[in-house]
């Protein structure tokens, strides 16, 4: 067994230990140690990303050691595509958050960097843990540094915000803990793969009613974290009061833990319940999109505006997840990463403005583009990514989500698309009030444009934003297997499009498939009837199937999906696990 994941998880903690031994007056040294540690972790994370096998189903880089005998807790780590992307996001944002705090954190520098590195270990741990107990430990462990980051280095109302943040999250954690204990009681194990095997087996040890309650307990914990409307009110307070690094990590990574948990636990463990609650959750997600956008529009405080925009963006993610089709899920996961980068960048930019003017009120600014042309250009770039301009990252996720949600119910897609217009409204209006027009306040006339350090941070983020928008393939392809496995549980049939490897082959096959017209059965404002929805792209008439078999490229021939009906195809794929 390799220790790639253990190293990735605990490398920041090693850095934290080193920091602990540096005298507190040597602030420069502390900063450099923290930065280098996070950069090494980033390099390690990129290595993991590149080494990840696209076609391998199930977990990779697994480490599994017994830890506690009774109850049988294992130190079980492993990653699938979902984890890999979120890990990459985490290790990417951590050095930027540290770099963004280079000047703005002047007090208790040692403690700050200690906590930041500990936080990174906690976050990485959440994404790699495959044992429920271990997961819970990391989940709770990461709360503590965040609590202190807000409470010590935050702004005026930091104590209120920190307490609110921790109480809200703890409420969910408590419910999740109960659910974990119940699961352990019913299955006798805490390891996620083993529980999954039991629950998907022929005689699941949990009744459908029990599964519903468990689903709700898990879901509530995660929905608070997301945050799903109406559980979102901790978010604006926490974001506004947190220091820049705190906001970046909060928005960039912590919110994703909610959607990660939904994908990792709620959907595969309780597929029946997920389907039952999907309509309610989708409606809440749509409300979140519209409501978050509208409330964001009227915020006088820059950070609050960005915070409410997160409610809207995460609404998109939840909507995509509960679309239960490949586009929705892959779009949602991709959008999780996009939101992390774009909103992280927005918070860093707002932090740069705060460093210069010590205010976040939009009304204090105006006309800054004349004074800060470089900062203004970067700000616009990030704004455009956040409002989903094609060829930047946000578009890919949003578009796939709208496509997926539209298939679930056209109205969801239509309302989500309206949310895209509102995003343009609140973001461009904000940009206009801050950067365009005349310079009104005398205090804004003599501000200094971006320093080298700031340019470095922003260039890195802009490059990632552009790269993810132009060539999303490396990311999306890593998701195929994990998404297929989730779909096989929650919406059997939908994963057929994903199980068989290469995208190029699929291209050709779907081209052939579409050459015979399919008929649209339902009025487009209603959900499609079951058989239509579950029909894979290969569910063709007998003739066209023969045609397809003849036309299929060599590597596709003989694969179950081409030769047999799609109902069988997924199972054949799943058996390989």
């Amino acid at each position, binding site marked *: 067994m390799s220790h790639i994941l253990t190293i990735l998880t605990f490398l920041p903690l090693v850095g934290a230990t080193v920091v602990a031994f540096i005298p507190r007056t040597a602030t420069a040294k502390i900063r450099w140690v923290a930065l280098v540690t996070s950069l090494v972790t980033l390099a390690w994370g990129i290595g993991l990303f590149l080494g990840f096998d696209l076609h391998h189903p199930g977990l990779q880089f697994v480490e599994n050691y017994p830890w506690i005998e009774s109850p049988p807790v294992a130190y079980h780590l492993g990653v699938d595509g979902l984890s890999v992307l979120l890990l990459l996001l985490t290790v990417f944002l951590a050095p930027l958050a540290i770099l963004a705090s280079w000047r703005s954190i002047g007090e208790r520098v040692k403690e700050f960097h200690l906590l930041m590195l500990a936080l990174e270990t906690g976050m990485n741990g959440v994404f790699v843990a495959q044992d429920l107990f271990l997961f819970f430990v990391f989940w709770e462990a990461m709360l503590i540094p965040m609590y202190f980051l807000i409470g010590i280095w935050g702004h005026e109302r930091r104590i209120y915000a920190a307490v609110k943040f921790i109480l809200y999250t703890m409420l969910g954690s408590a419910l999740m803990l109960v659910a974990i204990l119940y699961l352990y009681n019913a299955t006798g194990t805490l390891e996620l793969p083993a529980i999954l095997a039991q629950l998907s087996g022929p005689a699941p040890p949990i009744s459908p009613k029990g599964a519903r309650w468990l689903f709700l307990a898990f879901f509530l914990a995660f929905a608070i974290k997301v945050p799903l409307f*109406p559980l979102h009110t901790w978010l604006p307070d926490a974001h506004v009061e947190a220091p820049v690094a705190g906001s970046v990590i909060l928005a960039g990574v912590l919110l994703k833990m909610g959607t990660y948990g939904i994908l990792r636990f709620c959907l595969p463990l309780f597929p029946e319940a997920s389907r039952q609650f999907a309509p309610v959750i989708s409606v809440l997600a749509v409300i979140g999109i519209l409501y978050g956008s509208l409330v964001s529009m009227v915020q006088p405080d820059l950070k609050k505006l960005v915070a409410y925009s997160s409610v809207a963006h995460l609404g998109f993610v939840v909507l995509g997840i509960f679309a239960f089709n*490949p586009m929705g899920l892959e779009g949602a996961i991709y959008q999780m990463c996009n939101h992390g980068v774009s909103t992280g960048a927005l918070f860093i930019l707002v932090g740069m403005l705060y460093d210069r003017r010590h205010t976040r009120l939009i009304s204090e600014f105006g006309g800054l583009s004349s004074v800060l042309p470089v900062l203004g250009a970067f700000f616009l770039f990030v704004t455009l990514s956040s409002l989903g301009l*094609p060829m930047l990252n946000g578009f890919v996720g949003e578009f796939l989500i709208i496509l997926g949600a539209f298939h679930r119910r056209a109205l969801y*897609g239509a309302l989500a698309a309206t949310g895209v217009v509102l995003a343009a409204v609140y973001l*461009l209006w904000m940009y*206009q009030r801050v950067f365009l027009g005349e310079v009104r306040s005398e205090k804004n006339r003599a501000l200094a444009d971006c320093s080298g350090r700031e340019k470095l941070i922003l260039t890195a983020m802009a490059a990632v934003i552009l790269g993810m928008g132009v060539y999303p393939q490396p990311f*999306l392809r890593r998701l195929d297997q994990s998404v297929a496995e989730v779909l096989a549980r929650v919406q059997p049939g939908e994963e057929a499009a994903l199980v068989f490897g290469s995208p190029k082959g699929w291209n050709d096959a779907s081209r052939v498939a*579409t*050459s015979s017209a*399919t008929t649209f059965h339902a009025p487009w404002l209603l959900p499609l009837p079951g058989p239509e929805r579950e029909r894979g792209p290969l569910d063709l008439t007998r003739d066209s199937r023969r045609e397809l078999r003849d036309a299929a490229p060599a590597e596709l021939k003989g694969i179950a999906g081409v030769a047999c009906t799609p109902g069988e195809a997924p199972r054949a794929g799943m058996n390989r696990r």
Partner: protein
Amino acid sequence: MEAILLLLLIPPLAGAALNGILGRRLPQAAVSLIGCGTAALSMIAALAAAWKFTQLPPDAAPYAHHYFTWIHSGTFTADFALYYDRLTLVMTCTVTVTAFLIHLYSRGYMEHEGGYYRFFSHLNLFLFMMLLLVTAGNYALMFVGWEGVGLCSYLLISFYFTRQSAADAGKKAFITTRIGDVGFTLAVALLFWTFRSIDFSTVLPQIAALGAGEQRTVLTAIGLLFFLGAAGKSAQIPLYVWLPDAMEGPTPVSALIHAATMVTAGVYLVARSNAIFSHAPAALSTVGAIGCITAFFAATIALCQNDLKRILAYSTISQLGYMFAACGAGVFAAGIFHLMTHAAFKALLFLGAGSVMHALSGELDIRKMGGLRHRIKITYGTFLIATLSICGVPGFAGFFSKDEILAAEYEGALGRSWLFVLGSVTAGLTAFYMFRALLMTFHGQPRMDPEVERHIHESSSKMTGPLIVLAILSIVAGWVSWPKPLGGAEAFDRYLEPVFGQSEELLRAAAPATPAHALTGGALMLISLGAAGLGILLALWFYLWSPELPERLARNFKSAYTLLVNKYYVDELYGALIVRPIRLCSEGLLWRGIDAGAIDGVLVNGTAEATAEVGGILRRIQSGNLRSYAAWVLLGAVVWVGYVLLR
């Protein structure tokens, strides 16, 4: 071919990047060399591609090339794939030629403006996005160009960003067109889920091969949704409001983006999707009706405007309406033909207006002009040619294309006589307001400040050169398609037949059998010529022969005049019905009411306070007083014993 298409796209992108990143440190000459040079390379590539494609036989398949997979998820694929057929050919040539000329003109126009490099960088980026829009091989990639040109339009409208009105106008343009983009997005989604592809070379033949009436409901929905997108981008009712405000941008931008190219993207979208519309006649009729009504509506507003650029802006909306009317009548080629001629004469009109502005130190109000024809002769001559062209005077380009449209409105598969009547009236209005603008600007007595008058000068050759070239194009561009009533063969329409032929035929076949048309092509032409002539005569009478007449009319028909001057109060209406309610509701109800009040105040902090209250009450039990604890213990024991005994 695949290399030529890349050579078409890459230079402007590279130019944009180069000028955007390094431009601040480069001298003006280098910036304009990069800007104009890349535009020229692009134009050469477009012409080379056109030449190469024309060598092929007419029935050759469209050229489609897949470069790399952009987005792929499940069964959905959006490739970076380009598509080239005769429609693309016309579009790329129109776009690159006008763009190149306007790049050249901008060297002179922007010479003394700040942000010279920024201007050229954005202009190059626009050219790239526009070319991507017209060469894209699927709807998703087309949407990239579609949004990209919207972004450049935003950036260039608010080019003078320190001016509040410019910043407002840019934002308004972006958001209004984005409302249309909802339609575009949903159309793509519906198209994909119905036909499982959004690739032109896959899905369009598939739709074209459908039987009559098959999938009609879905295709009608797709068509209408696409048209919503087109109405946003091409400024049609009800989303036209952004275009007049967009005149805040520098004049070359108005000429290139808001007259010649970007705003015609909606027409291109409808024409490209002709297979879809041919199976959805109801959607196509809607396109035609809205186009025709917009043409008329915008022309009436243009009658009473006094800002030269705004007159031209409303005229653009009106002419775009004509193009949609042609497509909507089932004659797509006529719409594209007008798109091409309009690009020449409308770009010329705007550039002429820019030259007038230069001469008059930035003045745009035609009430403060007059008598310029002797002072700036080249500008006057070219402006006159463009005006004659847009009015449809025989021999000029506009005559040929407009005549085809009016004929289509009557004779086309979906043509109606009311469309023709409205179209002809619009032709008269167009002639009137354009001659009004021409006469008030160049004829009569000078009405400007003496200070301004002293500085009047003809623009440099950097600006007049492109004017002359465009003037030539404004005449000859129409000659490619000599109309039938004059013994021509409508060569342009024939040329585009491989693209539109099947759809136009299908529409004709599906159209209800009409009685023999009462009017022949020649009669139609005479009617439209008569309308234009009448408009010109009226304008001459009002503004040259008896200049006191307009004022008298304005006094006598005060309410109508006020309504027109205020553009039917549409902006105010949108503000009162949509913008303000949303803002107030978001602020008062959603944020302060629901969010801060109900959810956070009552539910969240209410729970916290309730907990604190209960704690406060329970605290009294923990008094620290030994005797009270003993009393509690005794009380507990009594209750327990009582419970056990009485059970």
